[in-house]
């Protein structure tokens, strides 16, 4: 019953959209759902489409994974050694405060357009993962750590039974946010740098050719890919943390 109601509401908004586009009657300013679906279906059989999607997914995933691994590693080390934490603090603050666009343009000068998306998603994700790793480890129950001291529990077991369960909820919630951010900044990097055969390039081209229908279609592609990516990664994370428990 609830799902039927949701479908009706979605249908309602699609109808509003279609009517609005007919009334505006200017295909550059506004395009209706029918035209967007038409554009979208025209994209699917193109080899270039799949190449661009694979390329963008690959680059942004790489940036995310590198940021995740280095974020957790440095987060753990910074938790253990205060001095490292102090040394990294200004760098992380910089990464958090500088607008992504500035980073992207700077990176364009340094490394060119090809790996721009990797860099942009790294710069956005790393501070999030690093900070939440530290916060998660700091949230470890001190009373449990005292208990571990009294019972002389070895470090490996402390990590598995005390530290990891404290860290994982922080990490998985920041991952969910970081994934979305990686996508947005990765695509933005591609639009600014226009590397060949990427989603961002096609987004940019649809602007150049004033093809609003293509713009919408590519946007839908981005949303779909981002949602899929998020679901896959969170599934992997859940499986991984499930395995740790037994």
């Amino acid at each position, binding site marked *: 019953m609830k799902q039927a109601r949701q479908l009706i509401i979605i249908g309602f908004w699609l109808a509003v959209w279609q009517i609005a586009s007919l009334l505006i009657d200017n295909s550059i300013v506004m395009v209706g759902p029918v035209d967007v679906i038409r554009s979208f279906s025209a994209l699917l059989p193109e080899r270039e489409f799949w190449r661009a999607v694979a390329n963008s997914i690959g680059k942004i995933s790489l940036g995310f994974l590198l940021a995740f691994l280095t974020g957790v590693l440095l987060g753990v080390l910074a938790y253990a050694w205060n001095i490292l934490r102090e040394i990294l603090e200004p760098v992380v603050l910089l990464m958090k405060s500088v607008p992504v666009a500035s980073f992207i343009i700077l990176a364009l000068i340094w490394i060119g357009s090809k790996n721009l998306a990797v860099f942009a998603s790294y710069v956005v994700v790393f501070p999030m993962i690093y900070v939440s790793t530290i916060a998660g480890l700091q949230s470890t129950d001190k*009373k449990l750590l*005292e*208990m571990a001291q*009294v*019972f002389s*529990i070895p470090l490996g*077991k402390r990590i598995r*039974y*005390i530290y990891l369960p404290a860290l994982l909820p922080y990490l998985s919630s920041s991952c969910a946010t970081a994934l979305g951010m990686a996508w947005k900044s990765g695509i933005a990097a591609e639009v600014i740098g226009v590397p060949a055969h990427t989603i961002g390039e096609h987004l940019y081209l649809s602007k150049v050719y004033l093809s609003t229908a293509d713009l919408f279609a590519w946007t839908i592609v981005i949303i779909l890919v981002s949602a899929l990516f998020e679901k896959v990664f969170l599934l992997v994370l859940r499986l991984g943390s499930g395995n740790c*428990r037994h």
Partner: protein
Amino acid sequence: MNPGTVSIQNLSKSYGELTVLAQLNMLLTVGKPWVLMGPSGCGKTTLLRILLGLEVPDTGTVKWDLQMSARSPVSRQRPNLPAVFQEDRLCEAFSPMENILMVTGNLFSRDQISQELCRLLPAESIQRPVHTLSGGMKRRVAILRALLAPGDGVLMDEPFTGLDEDTKLQVISYIKEKTADKLLLITTHQEEDVELLGGTLILLPFVEEPAKML
């Protein structure tokens, strides 16, 4: 043969303005349970924490003369003392079995641990996560953990909270069985526990008066 002693000499501990222990002197011998009682705030938990090495006293010393188990390295100054804290301090996401395995390592097989756990807990409860157990059951897991872990003695801080009378008697009999030749120090608020444990009462009053052994 000397069964072992713990000699507490001139122990003092203050937190800022508040003096919790003042010139405490005690001699505990291994053989019978020692039951520590006293009004809230008289320093029972502080004393236990100092014995466990979690707090450092302001003055005074603790001299250990226990038969250290074969597992304790000779160089250790402090013996192995598993404890039951006022809070359960269990890893709630894991089962009682896993909580015990955490501290016993290779000492016992899973079947042996299973057998021991079933002495005080219903069999179906030992494999599900601790957070699904009742307060009384969690307490029993904490007690089992302290008794099964390798140690030269056991310290328990108000271990019987949350246990009904029958369970308490069952637990006490199990404790006595497992600590027959180890140091056992328990704090409690209930005087009947002294007799149930067959132990010696130590009354720890507030700082103004010296401790009384009865």
